[in-house]
C-alpha cells in the first residue's frame, strides 16, 4: 500500500511536468491547428540554458532558493525568446501555405535544434546540478513526501494558475480564444492575429522552460536528444486530453504520468516508452477528439 501511494506521488509530480509541456502543444494547436514539433526541443534548449548558467556560477555547490528561481527565470526567458523567434522566422511566412508545408517545416526546426544542440552542447549527457537540497518534507505512516515533489507540483500549479488567469481573465487571453474559434472573424473585429500568435508561442514556450528546470532537477541527466521522448509523451498527453483544450492537457498529463509510473512500478520498465505510442494509437482510433476535446466539423 505504501509503495502504491509512493508511486502515485511520483506519478503526479511527473504528470504535472507532462501537463506543462502538453499545454504548449495544445495552445498552439488551438490557434494554428498544427503540431509544433519543435516544442519539445525548445524545452531541451531551456534545460541547457539553465545548466550552463548553473555551471558558470557553480550553483550546484551551494544549493539555494534564489538560485533555483534565477535558473527558472532564465530558462523561461530563453525558451520564450526561442519560441517567438521560431514562429517569426519559420512559421509566419507559411501561414497561408498548405498544412503539409508547415508540418515539414516544424519537423525541420525540431531536427535543426536537436542536431545544432549536439554540435553546440556535445552528444554526451550532462549532469544537471542540484539547485536545491532535497529533503524529506514530512512522512505519514512510512510514506516519505520529498520536498522536490512538492516543489514540482507547487510550481506547476502556480504556472497553470497564471496561465488560467491570462487565458480566461485578460484581454489578450480573450483575443487568443477569439482567434482559436475563428481567426478570420477575429481579424475583422480588430484583433492583431500576428500578435496573438506570437503571444501564444511565448506563453507555451515559457511553460516548457519551467518544465525544463523541473525535469532537470528530478532526472538530472540532460542531452540534446532529450526533447524527442519528452515531446512524444507530452504530445500524447495533449491528444489524450483532447488537443486544443487546456484542462484536457492537464488531465492528459496527469493520466500519462500516473500510468507510466504504474507500468514502471508493476510491469516492466522497458515498456515505459512504448506505452505512450500505445495510448496514442488506441485513443486516435477509438476517440480521436480526446477526453475533453470538441469535434471540429470540416466544411467544404
Amino acid at each position, binding site marked *: 500500500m505504501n509503495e502504491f501511494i509512493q508511486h502515485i506521488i511520483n506519478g503526479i509530480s511527473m504528470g504535472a511536468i507532462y501537463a506543462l509541456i502538453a499545454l504548449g502543444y495544445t495552445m498552439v494547436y488551438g490557434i494554428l491547428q498544427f503540431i509544433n514539433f519543435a516544442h519539445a526541443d525548445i524545452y531541451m534548449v531551456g534545460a541547457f540554458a539553465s545548466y550552463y548558467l548553473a555551471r558558470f556560477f557553480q550553483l550546484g555547490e551551494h544549493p539555494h532558493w534564489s538560485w533555483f528561481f534565477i535558473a527558472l527565470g532564465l530558462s523561461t526567458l530563453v525558451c520564450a525568446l526561442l519560441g517567438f523567434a521560431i514562429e517569426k522566422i519559420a512559421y509566419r511566412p507559411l501561414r497561408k501555405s498548405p498544412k503539409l508545408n508547415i508540418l515539414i517545416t516544424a519537423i525541420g526546426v525540431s531536427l535543426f535544434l536537436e542536431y545544432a544542440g549536439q554540435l553546440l552542447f556535445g552528444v554526451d549527457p550532462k549532469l544537471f546540478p542540484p539547485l536545491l537540497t532535497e529533503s524529506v518534507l514530512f512522512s505519514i505512516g512510512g510514506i516519505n513526501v520529498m520536498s522536490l515533489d512538492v516543489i514540482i507540483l507547487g510550481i506547476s500549479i502556480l504556472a497553470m494558475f497564471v496561465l488560467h488567469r491570462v487565458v480566461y481573465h485578460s484581454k489578450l487571453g480573450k483575443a487568443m480564444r477569439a482567434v482559436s474559434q475563428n481567426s478570420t472573424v477575429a481579424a475583422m473585429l480588430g484583433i492583431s492575429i500576428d500578435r496573438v500568435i506570437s503571444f501564444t508561442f511565448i506563453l507555451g514556450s515559457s511553460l516548457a522552460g519551467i518544465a525544463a528546470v523541473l525535469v532537470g532537477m528530478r532526472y538530472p541527466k540532460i542531452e540534446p536528444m532529450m526533447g524527442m521522448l519528452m515531446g512524444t509523451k507530452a504530445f500524447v498527453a495533449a491528444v489524450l486530453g483532447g488537443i486544443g483544450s487546456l484542462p484536457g492537457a492537464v488531465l492528459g498529463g496527469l493520466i500519462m504520468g500516473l500510468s507510466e509510473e504504474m507500468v514502471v512500478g508493476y510491469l516492466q520498465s522497458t515498456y515505459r516508452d512504448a506505452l505512450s505510442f500505445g495510448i496514442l*494509437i488506441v485513443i486516435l482510433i477509438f476517440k480521436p477528439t480526446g477526453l475533453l476535446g470538441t469535434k471540429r466539423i470540416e466544411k467544404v
Partner: protein
Amino acid sequence: MMKSAPLISFVILALMGLMLDQFLNPYLQRTMALVLVNIILAMSLNLVNGYTGQFSLGHAGFMAIGAYTSAYLSTHWVAPAAIVPHLLFFIFYSLVSGCFAAIAGWLVGQPSLRLKGDYLAIVTLGFGEIIRVIILNSSALGGARGYFGIPGPSPISFGGLALNAFYSFYLVAILWVLTCFFVIYRTISSTHGRAFMSIREDEIAADSLGIHTTRVKVKSFVLSSFFAGVAGSLFSHCMNFIAPSTFSMLMSINVVIMVVLGGMGSMTGPILAAVIISVLPEALRPLQELTGQDYRMVIYSLILIVLMLVRPQGLLGHKEIWNFWRKTRVE
C-alpha cells in the same frame, strides 16, 4: 511511353553497370548501391506522401521488416551456386520481403489512414517505432546486437570477363528500381492513380464523388510498403549487417527529405533528390574531417526549412525531368 521501355532501359542500365563494375572503386560502388536502395525508398514514399497526399513518417519500419525477412530467408535458405538461379533467389528474397512489408502496411494502414495530417504523421511514426522495438526485443532476429553475416549475391563471370559481386547486386537492384518506377508510373496514370491524386487534391470532393477514400489510401500505402520492404531487402544484402538502430526515425525522415526535396508528386524529382541526399554525406566528408563534427543532419534540417520557405514545391515540383528539355507541359 513505349511498351518495351522497361526492357530497353533495363538493357541500357545493365550495360552501364558493366562499366561501373570495371571502372569504379569498391567505395564508390557501395555508394552507388546505396543510391539505388534510396531511389526505391524515395519513389515508394512519394506514392503515399506525394501522390496520395498522406504524410507518413514510418517508412523505416516497413524497410526494417523487409530487411529482416530477407536476412532471415537468405541465411536459412541459401541460394544455389549456378548463376541464373542464384540471382533469381535474391529476387525471390526481396519479393517475399516486399510481401511481408505489404502485409504489415495493410495492418498499419487500416486503422491509421483514417486519420489526417499531423495525426497520421505521429501515428505512422509510432508504428515505425513499435516495429523497431519488437525487432529489438526478439532474440531470433539478433535483438540489439543486430543480424550478422547476411550473404550478398556472389560474383558472376561473363565469358572471359570476370565481374565483381557488385554487378550481381546491381542487376537485382536495377531490376527492382525499374519495376518500382514503372509500376508506380503506370499506376498513377491509371484509374487507381487518379483516385490517389483526387484524395491529395481534395479529400472531401473525392469522397463525394464516390471514392472510398480509406480503401484507396490503404491501397497506396500497401503498394508503398511493398517497395519499402524490397528496398530493405536490398539494403540488407548490400550492407551484410543490419541492426534495429539503423531503422530509426532518422531513416524515415531521411526518406521524407528526399521526397520533399525532389518534389512531392514528381516521379523523377525524388530520384534526383535520392541521388543528391545519398552522395551529399560522402561529399561532406572532407568538411567533417576538417572540423571533427558531423554537420550532416544540421544541413539536412536547414535544407528542409529553407526549402519550405523558398521553394515549397521541391526541386521539380509536379514536373518531370524530361519536361524541362521537351517543351511540352504535362500536368
